[in-house]
């Protein structure tokens, strides 16, 4: 039995380790990128994956994600890293086919048995997704990082992107928020075993079922909630779609104790970076407390899908998601006509709709 605790290494956890989005955007906007008639979705729309037409109506979907440990057990870390990497293919409505592992590892300090366990976790998750591991690349690094470059496939009529949210749509979130603060609490020895296990379980859940249901019920737009937090990813989708959004804070599903952890200041640097990135475009009702706000900027690891669809589609989608996954999910708000200054309004109260919590 491996006794290594990956939380013992001193590093930013999971998707909190991302380079701030405002700085990333400036890099790509300065470059003259090659183009192609087959390029369907490139980096300009900040979507979850790139999409490239390989034959009439058939698209390749490509994405990559990797990050430092988000769980203390190597196997669980591998599972979550794989689920997180696969999620971007699901966010586009695609099915994953192949993966390449990206590995940075302190082989001398931790030993290769630990890397084997991480990889076993990832491979088991790939098997669950119906995808195969083709290989990967590894380097010695003082801080472990693990993830996958994933290639998937999607047909034109199933493709979902983040650019077609419509006023009148409702917003559906298919997993609870709070993984960022819970990971931080676990690292600090404050989370209970139950809270840590539940966060790990949620992060390990593939977004496959939620994606299939979103496609089946005709979603207008979809993204997954990861390192930029709910508000960061919602903002990107609203901005690219040319709409605004309203989120009802009490309808947002949240992991147990996550609000308390946010109140205690168990926030990563990325949580503050996310606030800087979109804070000027978000308006909170006056009675929304700071911990509630912080939770909405909290970077998520392997979060749920944020889907824009009709209320009727949402109810059908959620019934299927709850049955398949046993996770807290629901209608959290709606898409509205574009406002000039405010892109996201966060209101006290419950979202309308039978599918809301």
């Amino acid at each position: 039995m491996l006794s290594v605790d990956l939380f013992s290494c001193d590093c930013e956890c999971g998707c909190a380790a991302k380079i701030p989005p405002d700085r990333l955007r400036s890099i790509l906007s300065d470059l003259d990128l090659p183009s192609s008639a087959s390029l369907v979705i490139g980096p300009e729309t900040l979507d979850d994956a790139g999409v490239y037409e390989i034959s009439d109506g058939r698209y390749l979907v490509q994405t990559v994600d990797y990050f430092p440990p988000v769980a203390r057990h190597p196997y669980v870390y591998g599972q979550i890293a794989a689920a997180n990497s696969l999620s971007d293919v699901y966010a586009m409505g695609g099915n994953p086919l192949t993966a390449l592992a990206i590995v940075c590892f302190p082989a001398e300090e931790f030993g290769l048995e630990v890397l084997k366990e991480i990889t076993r976790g990832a491979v088991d998750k790939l098997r669950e997704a119906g995808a195969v591991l083709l290989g990967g690349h590894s380097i010695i690094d003082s801080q472990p990082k693990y993830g996958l470059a994933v290639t998937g496939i999607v047909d034109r009529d199933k493709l979902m992107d983040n650019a077609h949210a419509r006023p009148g749509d409702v917003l559906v979130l298919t997993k609870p928020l709070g993984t960022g603060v819970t990971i931080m609490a676990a690292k600090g020895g404050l989370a209970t075993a139950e809270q840590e296990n539940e966060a790990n379980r949620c992060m390990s859940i593939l977004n496959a079922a939620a994606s299939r249901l979103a496609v089946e019920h005709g979603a207008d737009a979809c993204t997954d909630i990861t390192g930029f937090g709910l508000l960061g990813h919602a903002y990107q989708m609203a901005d690219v779609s040319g709409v605004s959004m309203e989120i009802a804070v009490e309808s947002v599903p949240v992991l147990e104790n996550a609000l308390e952890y946010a109140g205690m200041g168990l926030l990563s640097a990325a949580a503050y970076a996310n606030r800087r990135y979109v804070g000027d475009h978000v308006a909170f009702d006056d009675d929304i407390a700071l911990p509630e706000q912080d939770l909405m900027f909290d970077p998520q690891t392997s979060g749920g899908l944020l889907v824009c669809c009709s209320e009727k589609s949402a109810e059908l989608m959620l019934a299927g998601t709850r049955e398949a996954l046993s996770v807290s999910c629901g209608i959290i708000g709606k898409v509205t006509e574009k406002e000039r200054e405010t892109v996201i309004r966060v209101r006290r109260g419950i979202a309308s709709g039978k599918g809301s919590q």
Partner: protein
Amino acid sequence: MAEIVDARGLSCPIPVIMARRALDAVASGEVQVLVDEEVAKENVSRLARSSGCPVDVVEEGGEFRLRIEKTG
């Protein structure tokens, strides 16, 4: 006499953990927390406020001294 917690050079969540331990250990009085990162300053401030303790932050040459008053 204030309890002083030196959390400089330590990354989150350790400053919050250390500050919380110090606040739990005193019935009342001042706890000072030293940090050298903006994120740690913000996090410890949030901890203080959620604990119902007034906090005053002073910047000292790129470092921060948080004076937290625990009322009994």
